[in-house]
């Protein structure tokens, strides 16, 4: 029996969990996939949006702006990489300039500061590699980039360290009233709780519509991306947007906090919420539009492509707060972009709302600080020597592309809400995210996972479920033969 059950382990759910951990409450988070951060939160553009794009007086605008202002503190407390690299919304023809003025004005109405329109010369001075057909741009000084999966995982780790229970492989099948409680049926068992917070992203409508007559519907909208090798770090400094369309913010060319560059996302309405395929049409579109900004996208240095699906809601805005007809059932519904930017604000709001309604007291010993796994690649030689002295596994480099050591991989498994899969290790350490895309490190990573979890290599999965990595041993342990 819990005080609060959070459904969904993306950035919203994990942020809400961390904020609830500030209170004396019994909190559980149920995540349907084999790991947290398997949905939108791992497949987005990683932008901390300035807040000019959202329509005024919407929840998107409100939470974007508030959330943006919270990022410094959150990333500092949680030791998450954050860079205020600014955003530029670029117009590549004169006819786009009025739209820039519109966005500037919209931003100011939303309460965004530091917006200005800059001309071609200034743009090229800032961004020497931008296409020369650029005419003008909206300069957004409070635009930034963050690591979205490290943010999600950091929130979860901090929440767990402060008492929140995490259940993975726990898809929720039913939420219903049971007397004065909520009864939640899931793949990890049936739970009862005084309050439920719906952070189920692409399935937030399904969960909401189980308990509320105030229904909404998610219309999945897929976006496809290219990732360019970090040898191109510095090609662009700001995150370069194009003019937004009714489908979204358009295709960006942006650096990431890791030095790679993203080109994307496209925007395509699809039927299947789980259809995370990349498509030849979508990728071609990303390149075509991306090359308006970056004329010669280096195709030989693409390291991979991916797709994410936005939880676009038919209300065209977030659905945040207690459902009017379902007391103590709270929604974070239809959280698509600017969801990542809004997450600190949404998480705080939902947690505080629930806590207040439950009459909860603040926890005396809540520790807001979470330290990331010390990264060998960021250490000085002296720090490296010290790290190795205290843990020999820091001397074994497993991922050559990203310089990730065995110590970090083991830590990623051992920490609260630790990795249980290849992708889980990937997201917590960057192992396998480099130019050889896990070709080199996979055998060693599988071995470490088996040692830490006491499982056989044949049980290791890429991301849970049926995503087994291997098929069989050549030889049985017991005897010589295999047909």
């Amino acid at each position: 029996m819990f005080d609060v059950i959070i459904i969904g382990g993306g950035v919203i759910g994990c942020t809400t969990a961390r904020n609830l951990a500030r209170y004396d409450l019994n909190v559980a988070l149920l995540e349907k996939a084999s790991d947290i951060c398997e949905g939108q939160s791992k497949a987005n553009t990683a932008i901390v949006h300035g807040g000019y794009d959202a329509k005024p007086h919407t929840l998107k605008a409100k939470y974007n702006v508030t959330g943006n202002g919270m990022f410094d503190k959150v990333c500092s407390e949680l030791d998450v990489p954050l860079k205020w690299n600014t955003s530029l919304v670029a117009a590549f023809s004169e006819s786009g300039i009025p739209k820039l003025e519109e966005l500037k004005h919209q931003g100011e109405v939303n309460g965004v500061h530091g917006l200005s329109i800059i001309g071609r010369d200034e743009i090229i001075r800032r961004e020497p590699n931008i296409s020369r057909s650029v005419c003008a741009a909206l300069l957004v000084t409070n635009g930034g980039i963050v690591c979205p999966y490290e943010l999600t995982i950091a929130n979860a780790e901090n929440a767990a360290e402060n008492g929140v229970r995490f259940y993975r492989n726990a898809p929720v099948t039913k939420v219903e009233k049971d007397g004065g409680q909520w009864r939640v049926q899931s793949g990890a068992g049936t739970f009862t709780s005084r309050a439920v917070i719906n952070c189920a992203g692409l399935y937030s409508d399904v969960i909401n519509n189980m308990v509320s007559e105030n229904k909404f519907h998610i219309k999945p909208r897929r976006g496809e991306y290219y990732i360019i090798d970090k040898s191109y770090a510095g090609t662009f400094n700001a995150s370069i947007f194009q003019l937004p369309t009714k489908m979204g913010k358009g295709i960006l060319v942006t650096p990431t906090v890791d030095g790679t560059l993203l080109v994307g996302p496209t925007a395509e309405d699809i039927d299947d919420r789980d259809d995370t395929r990349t498509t030849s049409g979508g990728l071609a579109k990303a390149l075509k539009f991306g090359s308006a900004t970056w004329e010669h996208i280096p195709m030989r240095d693409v390291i991979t492509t991916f797709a994410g699906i936005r939880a676009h809601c038919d209300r065209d805005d977030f659905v945040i707060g207690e459902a009017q007809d379902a007391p103590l059932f709270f929604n974070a519904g239809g959280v698509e972009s600017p969801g990542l930017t809004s997450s600190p604000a949404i998480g705080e709001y939902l947690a505080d709302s629930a806590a207040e309604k439950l009459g909860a007291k603040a926890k005396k010993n809540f520790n807001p600080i979470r330290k990331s796994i010390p990264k060998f690649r960021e250490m000085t030689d002296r720090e490296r020597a010290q790290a190795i002295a205290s843990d020999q596994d820091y001397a074994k480099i497993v991922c050559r592309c990203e310089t990730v050591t065995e110590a970090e991989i083991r830590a990623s498994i051992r920490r609260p809400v630790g990795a249980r899969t290849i992708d889980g290790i990937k997201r917590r350490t960057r192992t396998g995210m480099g130019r050889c895309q896990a070709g080199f490190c996979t055998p060693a990573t599988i071995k470490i996972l088996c040692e830490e979890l006491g499982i056989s290599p044949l049980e290791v999965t890429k991301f849970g479920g049926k995503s087994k990595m291997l098929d069989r041993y050549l030889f049985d342990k017991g005897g010589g033969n295999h047909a």
Partner: protein
Amino acid sequence: MRNVDIIIIGGGPAGLAAAVSAYESGCRDILILEREEKLGGILKQCIHNGFGLKMFHEELTGPEYAKKYIDKVIAYGIPYECDTMVIGISDDKTVTAVNRVNGVQVFKAKAVVLAMGCRERPRGALAIPGYRCSGIYTAGTAQRLVNLEGIMPGKKVLILGSGDIGLIMARRMTFMGAQVLACVELMPYSSGLKRNIVQCLDDFGIPLLLNHTVVDIKGRERLEGAVVAEVDPETKKPIPGTEQCFDCDTLLLSVGLIPENELTKMAGVKLGESTKGAEVDESLETSADGIFSCGNVLHVHDLVDFVSKEAEKAGANAYRYVKGDMKKTGGGVEVKNGYGVSGTVPQFIHPESMDEPVNFMFRPKGVYKNAEICVEAGGQRIYSRKSRILSPGEMVNVQLSPEVFKQVPCIEDVTVKVEA
């Protein structure tokens, strides 16, 4: 900080041959740094035969070929550290390495030989659309899993890329009980040896689909199928309507190698555009003083025998450098890739001070029958030889003596080309 005369980064075929050669040239202060548990590099997992025909006139397997050099390293007492990763190198030859036993070690070398080999190009680099499921491996990773770890990655296999590593794995997977459905090749020809086509595909009735590629991946969690389409030979774009789906749970990729030049770049060494490896001169010295390069990290080879020969030169020259015996005048003359030629190594030569034969090694850009390989210098043709067939899958080796260059008065550049 420890002083070492010659540090060799990589204990695979290139590093081993360079070490042995440096020793046999007289060097007694050599250190091999190898990141795997054992010496041998990629040869440890190449359990098939075909190595050493030219070098030893024997048909050896990879481990046996490596053993010939490892035995010498041990017999000569050449120091080596395994399980040791070089994480830093500067242009003044300060080398930083880490291992469990010694932690962080900093060495100051008089000469360095870069012999780091390659990693493989992944699916992501080809941007193959579809699901990002498990079951997709580069051929080399699968080879390691099968031959070193004793684990089969899957049961029903499709292979993309008909280079030798893909062909070898077609046979290996078949031998170990998997079903290999086809080998899919983008180009109109295979870059693998004819012998491998016959003995890895034809012998088992595995079809080779030229002018084809994989256009979609099916299977949300584990691979379930790969959609293959024919491509236009000119544009390489898939031809609509030619798609066929192969039901498979394993896709092995043999689609190119990435020379491991992270350290090379760190040392400030200039890399060549077409080889993606260091730019070197006839002695295999890079643009950084006393830093040499050889093997697959310099340019991708087909035969390990030529890796060894090249590495021998690099090792011997590294010792000449240490002794102060390298006489080079000026920056050298550029070696240009003429018609039909790609990736010629070395990229520079010093015709006036050359005192040993130079080996120009390059890859033909296409398939040429009854063509002539020519080298021109100072406006004169200084070499030509006829060849019944030239193909991108077989590296060409042209050896020229210093006298040939000395006969030409004013050499501003050298061009290697094919006349078809």
